């Protein structure tokens, strides 16, 4: 990827517009704005829902705002569920994902650099293996991993969730592409001539130039691990080891919020409460995506193909 080519979009040639072009443009804007509206409505609803109580949620206009007290009430009601179990799930999700992001990114940086800039043997076959692993979704490994995890004896521990999440072939590929295209190879050579070893070049030349790459690695590993459901769901059973997305699934099936058959009048967990719990999962992802919007546009794919 040449950074210059993809970041600057010079203003394109302008000339007089014809009538058909103007109507075409209007139609294009309508389509784009409609899609934007449909994109924003579900999240807005989710943000507004906890401001109302269960009755208002159904009687008031769907996109109306109740009161700030609504959020506090919903939160207090959520805390009734197994004495604030939700906080444990939230904390678990935070520290599991934290370890995963740091380890996965560091491992990917090293491996990508090794593929791109050292004379390591078997590079081509290791790259192909990484490409395969990156295209096959992690869910495909769930049952094989389940067998391994029970064999290793880490079933129902935090490590059963954390460790598989540090395997991040897509990150290795991103780092490899970055180190082999964005940073000119002459730079590595120059540092070598100045007497730096491979590690020195990595530390003093490659790493300081890879802020964008590190951001992307953190973004993608956060995104997959924060919302992961299937693997955590089958390798952990104890309530105090679970993560937030799995916990949310438990709230679905064991509270009257989505499942009126269950304990209808026992738990105060209804629509507003479940929406608030959902927000705890959704907001971090949303923020991370919005913060990374520029990285995405700069061409995650363009980076992998263009030179």
């Amino acid at each position, binding site marked *: 990827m040449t950074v210059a080519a993809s970041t600057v979009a010079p203003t394109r040639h302008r000339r007089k517009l014809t009538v058909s072009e103007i109507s075409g443009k209007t139609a294009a804007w309508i389509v784009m704005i409609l899609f934007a509206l449909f994109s924003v409505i579900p999240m807005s609803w989710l943000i507004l829902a906890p401001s109302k109580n269960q009755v208002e949620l159904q009687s008031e206009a769907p996109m109306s705002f109740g009161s700030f007290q609504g959020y506090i009430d919903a939160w207090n009601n959520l805390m009734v569920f197994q004495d604030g179990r939700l906080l444990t799930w939230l904390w678990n999700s935070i520290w599991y994902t934290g370890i995963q992001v740091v380890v996965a990114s560091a491992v990917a940086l090293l*491996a990508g650099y090794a593929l791109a800039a050292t004379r390591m043997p078997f590079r081509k076959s290791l790259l192909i293996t990484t490409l395969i692993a990156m295209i096959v979704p992690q869910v495909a490994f769930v049952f094989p991993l389940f067998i391994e995890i029970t064999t290793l004896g880490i079933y129902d521990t935090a490590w059963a969730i954390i460790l598989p999440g540090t395997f991040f072939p897509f990150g290795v590929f991103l780092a490899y592409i970055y180190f082999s295209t964005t940073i000119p190879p002459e730079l590595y050579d120059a540092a070598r001539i100045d007497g730096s070893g491979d590690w020195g070049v990595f530390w003093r030349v490659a790493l300081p130039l890879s802020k964008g790459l590190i951001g992307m690695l953190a973004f993608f590993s956060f995104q997959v691990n924060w919302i992961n459901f299937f693997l955590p769901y089958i390798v952990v059973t104890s309530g105090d080891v679970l993560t937030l997305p799995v916990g949310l699934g438990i709230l679905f099936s064991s509270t009257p919020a989505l499942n009126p058959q269950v304990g209808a009048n026992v738990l105060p967990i209804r629509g507003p409460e479940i929406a608030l719990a959902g927000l705890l999962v959704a907001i971090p992802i949303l923020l991370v995506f919005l913060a990374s919007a520029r990285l995405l546009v700069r061409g995650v794919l363009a980076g992998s193909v263009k030179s």
Partner: protein
Amino acid sequence: MLKHRARLMGQINGILMFLPYLILLITFAIIPIVLAISVSFETSLTNPNGGFGNYLFVLQDFRFLPAVLNVSLFLALYLPAMLIVVAGLSLLLDTIQAKYSVPLRLAYLVPAGITGTVAILVWYFMLEPSYSPFAALFAEVGWTEGNDLFNTSNLVWIFALMTFFTGAGNWIVIQYGSLQSIPDELLEAARIDGANVWQVAFRIKLPLIRKYLVYMLILVMAAGLQIFVEPYLISSSVYPGIAKDWSLNQLAYTFAFLGSNLGAATALSLMLLIVMIILALFVIFRTDFFDEAKGKIKEAR
């Protein structure tokens, strides 16, 4: 002599840097597959003769074919929708000035937050007439009760809708990024030759991002084949049993944890894995998507 030594040091350092990842690759990809293969061939109560018994058991199970059909139908709705909307909207976005498209791009990224478990939660409320902001719209079509929408024949549409909205927006932004990197001289040349906006979009831009779109489709298809959370959670909460054993992964889950037949579950997931690996090999060797990446290593040698 000195050069030879430097070369050897380079190799050793490379291996050391690659080692942590290699360990993870072996531990969390290769060993699990080997273990799963051995479990799938093991003799057990349900597989008394060992060998391919578990695979036959899966293929002959009465739920297998319906699950294959469900997932195929799901993909038949989901993939074309992704292709058309992502290609269409990224091309449209590319026709307006970058600064005006910023709010649109941010809006398109918002549904990325509604994924996995949250997607089921949100879409349940979006589709339940008593809560939905679209209730008036639904009423026009005659849907006034939850059951009008949540019934077995609509499920495939609902799951396609959920997964489509989760991914479409960020793929639009990503493909828009690829479009932005097309050199302006190329587009200018086409315009001077008399091509109008549509011709530029379909004859020049679309062919240039074709391989990114193919790549997207393969990734999306690989993920779609594995659909689990959406049908599983709908079925275990809102409408109990409505989508029981609807997808292949749900069936594998049922084999493993309700039928205590891990052999059949791993046989099924290995069959899915083979499909994935074939898809992956196709992208790697039969499309030009990774040519650049592979080429880099060759020239360095």
